[in-house]
């Protein structure tokens, strides 16, 4: 095959890969073509051809960066939100309430906080799930950057009779811990249990509440240090952290499947160590958290 034809064929491949969104593959082909042009003494207007190629490569870079910046958590249509809720309500045959909780958690995990709030609000009517729903309502408000709303919510609950004194105490400790992790000194009303009250049985949640996590960094700008991040959402052993743009550099080197042996977990009752693995990492591209990162860590053992 003639050199010219060969180059043409390679460029055709590059363009096809680009069109299909296979950007790395396209890049390799453009590079291959550039090399062939550069090293071929027979080609006359090299400068012009190479300039044209590097322009194409630049455009490709722009596309790659857009893709690498990861998913946006778009505000979805209510129809799409309904679908997410339905799709992730796996227990609908066994228990309608359990399914409703799963659906609401999924909405929160996909960044649909406003809608998740509505669903958690509905779950407040349910005795068995009230405490879990309440905690998640507070988490949603905090994810939406309205700490005050979260505190106000608690105060309303503290005055009402929806929760027992014990339950309120669980919620208060949880929320104060969240505030403390954020460096906020917000004190919440302590509700005294009536003296004769019998201690209610603890709700069995599948995993202890973790409010913050310490990650030892093995590379990057924070190498050798343990950095602490708040946990924004938790479902079982999966922790979701929202990491601000300015801390982005610290987690630059963490990738999906990176694992850690010595994570520190901070819970309202204890600090303990364990291992975990990065389950997902992405940048938030829209909404109030735009530019921040979302990191999911799965606890593998404690």
């Amino acid at each position, binding site marked *: 095959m003639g050199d010219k034809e060969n180059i043409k064929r390679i460029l*055709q491949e590059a363009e096809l890969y680009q069109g299909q969104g296979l950007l790395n593959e396209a890049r390799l082909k453009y590079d291959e073509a550039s090399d062939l042009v550069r090293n071929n003494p027979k080609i006359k207007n090299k400068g012009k051809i190479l300039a044209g190629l590097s322009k194409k490569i630049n455009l490709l870079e722009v596309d790659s960066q857009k*893709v690498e910046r990861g998913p*946006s958590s778009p505000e979805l249509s209510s129809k799409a939100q309904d679908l997410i809720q339905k799709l992730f309500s796996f227990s609908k045959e066994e228990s309608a309430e359990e399914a409703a909780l799963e659906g609401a958690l999924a909405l929160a995990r996909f960044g649909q906080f406003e809608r998740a709030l509505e669903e958690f609000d509905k779950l407040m009517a349910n005795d068995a799930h009230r405490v879990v729903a309440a905690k998640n309502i507070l988490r949603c408000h905090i994810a939406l950057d309205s700490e005050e709303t979260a505190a106000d919510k608690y105060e309303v609950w503290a005055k009402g009779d929806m929760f027992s004194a014990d339950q309120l105490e669980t919620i208060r400790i949880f929320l104060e811990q969240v505030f403390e992790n954020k460096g906020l000194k917000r004190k919440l009303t302590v509700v005294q249990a009536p003296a004769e009250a019998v201690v209610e049985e603890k709700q069995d949640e599948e995993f202890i509440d973790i409010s913050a996590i310490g990650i030892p960094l093995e590379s990057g700008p924070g190498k050798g240090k343990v950095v602490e991040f708040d946990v924004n959402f938790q479902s079982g052993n999966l922790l979701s952290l929202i990491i601000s743009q300015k801390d982005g550099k610290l987690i630059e080197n963490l990738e999906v499947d990176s694992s850690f042996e010595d994570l520190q977990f901070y819970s309202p009752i204890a600090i303990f160590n364990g291992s975990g693995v990065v389950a997902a990492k992405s940048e938030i591209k829209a909404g109030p958290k735009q530019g921040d990162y979302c990191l999911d860590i799965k606890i593998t053992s404690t």
Partner: protein
Amino acid sequence: MAIFNLKKREIECKVVYYGPGRGGKTTNLEYIFKTFRKQITGEMVSINTEGDRTLFFDFLPMGLGKIKGCEIKVQLYTVPGQVQYSSTRKLVLRGVDGIVFVADSLAVRRDKNMLSLKDLQANLKEYGLNIFKIPLVLQYNKRDLEEQGIPIMSVEQLDHDLNRQLKVPSFPGSALKGDGIGVALKECMKLTLKSLQKELKWAQ
């Protein structure tokens, strides 16, 4: 897990299109949506990110009518293929009854096919499912590119890479042109219903 509603005599099952990013899963569903109008029972919903990449999933509901006295409903989903969406991929796979694995015939995507199949196996395992037992078919997509002189793998090569141990039905095709798409889905449905019938014993 399929839902079997005894009273209404109705079965709702879940088929997931799995495979490497950009392999053509969404295009498969779009073709099915356009072509099998009679069986489509609702809108196709897609949640995409930059450059049409699937962000959460695509969803398409179908109804196959009555089979052995039971109304069969199927929900088709695609997972996001890009590596970084692994936790979404796993969530979408939950409760799966049958799988169409869409492999990319492009020679440059050889490794990605194999990695994605491995990822499928690992995710199924976490749900207590075995890739050797679950209803599964392979679809070798983008065969049309051969005409344009783009290097693609032979069917033998793909079979060797992906199907040597699995030995499941495989279908060369093109989601863009619609070749091999319907047959792959039909075979997957056949295997899925056979396996559900064994499990739920609705036909007896």
